[in-house]
């Protein structure tokens, strides 16, 4: 056998052996589905159901019960500073009213009200968040270095999430009148978040985020330069630089976490909300959770019950 043919044989055998190994290790036929490497548990299908107004109303209810549950847990754990106690009590009362309204709307639409927290959000967001605030010895997670701070940031994030979720549902609801009902609730949620930001960051600093202050200063500078000549433009430039610098520096506090502001964008944002919390590691990094408006995984379909 020539070297060439021996190599060809080895190559052939190698391919066969690799194929045999893959076959021996796997318990399924090769799938045409993309995106999986190795053996994984079978994919769990989502519940079957339509994403109609009924499902969206039930999902909205689940958000209210999620918020109520988060406030209940952190209050019971004694993690709410005195400054927030009265506002948080009011917020819980508002969320209960919202939940009642949504249950009523669900019934009117011919459905069964959903009166529990959203299981997806509880499992994927609330549970890990609380583990990093309270600590979880079994999972090797230490308690936060400042749980009261984290509780405030979490409350702020969930209020903003609720407001953004209702905003997002406007584009999905078929019945226009329901859009109005949900946006009335959304207004409450963003004002809850505003109150939290004002207490947390302090006023007037909390009013406007550095991005918007910087944009206003920049626009004013450009207008001055374009409209009134070099002298006025120079004056505006000097003023703007100090304001932009102050705004940019105002975005973070000493522990590296961003301070919240009432107004951080011109329009209501539907982007993912990231909340950072827990004890910092050696590199200064902290646990972060991403909160998103309802999607297929977090919809409460008609077939689901508490």
């Amino acid at each position, binding site marked *: 056998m020539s070297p060439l043919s021996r190599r060809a044989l080895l190559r052939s055998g190698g391919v066969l052996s690799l194929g045999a190994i893959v076959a021996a290790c796997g318990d399924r036929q090769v799938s045409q589905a993309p995106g999986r490497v190795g053996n994984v548990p079978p994919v769990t299908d989502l519940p079957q159901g*339509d994403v109609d107004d009924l499902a969206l109303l039930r999902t909205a209810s689940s958000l209210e019960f999620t918020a109520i549950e988060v406030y209940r847990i952190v209050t019971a754990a004694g993690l709410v500073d005195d400054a927030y106690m009265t506002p948080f009590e009011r917020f819980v009362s508002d969320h209960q009213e919202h939940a009642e309204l949504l249950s009523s709307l669900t019934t009117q639409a011919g459905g069964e009200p959903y009166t529990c927290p959203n299981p997806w959000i509880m499992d994927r967001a609330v549970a890990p968040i609380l583990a990093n605030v309270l600590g979880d010895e079994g999972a090797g997670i230490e308690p936060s270095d400042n749980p009261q701070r984290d509780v405030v940031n979490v409350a702020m994030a969930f209020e903003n999430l609720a407001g953004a979720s209702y905003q*997002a549902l406007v*584009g999905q609801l078929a019945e*226009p009148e329901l859009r109005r009902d949900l946006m009335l609730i959304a207004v409450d949620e963003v004002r809850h978040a505003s109150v939290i930001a*004002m207490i947390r960051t302090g006023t007037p600093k909390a009013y406007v985020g550095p991005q918007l*202050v910087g944009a*206003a200063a920049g626009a004013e500078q450009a207008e001055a330069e374009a409209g009134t000549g070099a002298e006025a433009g120079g004056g505006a430039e000097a003023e703007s630089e100090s304001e932009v610098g102050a705004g940019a520096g105002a975005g973070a506090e000493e522990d590296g976490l961003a301070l919240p502001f009432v107004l951080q964008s*011109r*329009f209501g944002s539907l982007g993912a909300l990231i909340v950072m919390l827990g004890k910092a590691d050696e590199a200064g990094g902290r646990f972060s959770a991403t909160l998103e408006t309802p999607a297929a995984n977090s919809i409460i379909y008609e077939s689901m019950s508490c």
Partner: protein
Amino acid sequence: MNTHQPVLSVGRAAPATTPPSQPDTGAPTGADAESLQFMLGAELAARDLYRAAHAEGAATPVPDLIVVLADNHGAYADSLAAIIGESANEAADAAVFDERLADFETTDVPALADAAYQLESQLVVTHVQLVGELRNRDAAELLASILISEARHCAILADLSGNGNDLEALLENPAEPLSSPVSSDTATTATGS
């Protein structure tokens, strides 16, 4: 406007979804267009009122706060004009502007904040009402994104007007909607818009 839609991260999509019964997208027409035109005029009036306040020289504790609020309303007006299309009439609503101008032309910051709070509150409830009347989904989504920010304006202005310790003032909105020339009956029965 941020139009991010979350994507699935785990699992399979549900096989069937029910699209909204009316696909009303694209340029608004009929009663929808009239309502949006009214809000465009109101937003321009709000922008101009803040500009008048800024020109008066009221010294707010946050530099540029009035400019930020003016810019925001200008951006809302731009978005409304864009969605209305080429028929948009970009003139401030004279009634909204004239009725409030004297209250905005002041250097008394709490008084200015109170006047602005009243205006923002009215804008919010008017937008909320229209969100429930518009047949055009794109327009409803735009108004929703505007009113969310205007509700935040209200909280800021409630505090600035001296009501920062009053939870009711910070959270409640007892305002009446601005008077729209389009009645709700006309708006809810509009078709093809």
